[in-house]
């Protein structure tokens, strides 16, 4: 139970530290923030585990009688799972495409909004597509593709091909279409 308790305390610290950092500095890439904070909190989890007594001052003694290594790794795995869930909540819900659409609809209050008006919100004034305009350059920046400056063609790097193959295999296993 100690591993579980420490992992939830560390998770709370992790989430708060990400939020505080986001308010103090201008964040260009949230993925870097989430992962670097996770890397920083990993040793803190282990320090907290070993620096505290077996019952963490509050647990009944019976709850503390577990193999230490098992309990330690169990708590760490729970922390990692929950960190992943927080990350997915941020990118999938808070920053998700569908929730973005819901937000645009809600902003119209009782007027409602047509499909065409929603689409217009995802275009820049010059008509370029906001989704493609940042995603493809971001894939190039993070090393998944290479964009030919002359032709504009996008080619997968080894990293991109690896990620794409895993995704394609997963789509086959789940029996999904192209999705997106």
């Amino acid at each position, binding site marked *: 139970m100690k591993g579980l308790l420490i992992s939830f305390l560390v998770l709370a610290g992790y989430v708060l530290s990400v939020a505080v950092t986001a308010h103090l500095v201008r964040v260009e890439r949230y993925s870097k923030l989430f992962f670097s904070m996770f890397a920083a909190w990993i040793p803190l989890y282990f320090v907290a585990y070993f620096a505290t007594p077996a019952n963490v001052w509050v647990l009944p003694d019976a709850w503390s009688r577990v193999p230490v290594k098992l309990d330690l790794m169990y708590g760490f795995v729970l922390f990692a799972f929950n960190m992943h869930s927080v990350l997915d909540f941020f990118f999938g819900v808070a920053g998700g495409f569908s929730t973005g659409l819901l937000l645009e609809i809600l902003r119209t209050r009782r007027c409602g909004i047509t499909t065409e008006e929603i689409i217009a919100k995802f275009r820049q004034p010059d008509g370029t597509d906001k989704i493609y305009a940042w995603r493809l350059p971001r894939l190039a920046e993070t090393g998944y*593709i290479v964009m030919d400056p002359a032709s*504009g063609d996008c080619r997968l790097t080894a990293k991109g091909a690896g990620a794409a193959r895993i995704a394609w295999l997963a789509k086959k296993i789940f029996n999904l279409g192209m999705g997106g």
Partner: protein
Amino acid sequence: MLTRGILTAVSVSLAWILLHLLAMHIRPARNHFNAMLANYLLSLPLVFLVYRWFPLPAEAATADPGSFGLGLFHAYLLHLLLFFQYVEFFYHVERSVTVRFLVMILLARNRTAHPADIQQDYSLEDMITRRLADLEQNRFIEKRDGRWHNRAKGVLVTLVTAVALWFFRSKPQSERL
């Protein structure tokens, strides 16, 4: 009992996930989340049964004593977290626009594609229209006189989204450029 709980959670999760994958090939669900949730809920009684009768070696049982109830709690907790991980992985694969781009380039000739070709196959209009249809099917929004409105469920999700955006000081996708 923690050992028993962990092994129970992992084995029951693997079993229902494999069954779910099989079902996806035999009779694909229209609503993937409801299908995953239904399979997860059906697996809950199995957690108790497997935990009760899991064949743990005597050594492991001696090294890891503890109450039956506490071990069962860990079994259910880890089983729930594994469900979350599975659902999240599923939606990474199914919903991600970026993942779709990578796969489209992978399947293109010489694994090279021009953005205009990608956009032709999967335009902004396609992305939005498809998502609006899914949101309508899942009762987050409704259409009245040709205009979209949030339903109660949609309003709730949007409020949670707005709070999260404030909390992490982030912007929705339409404002990122």
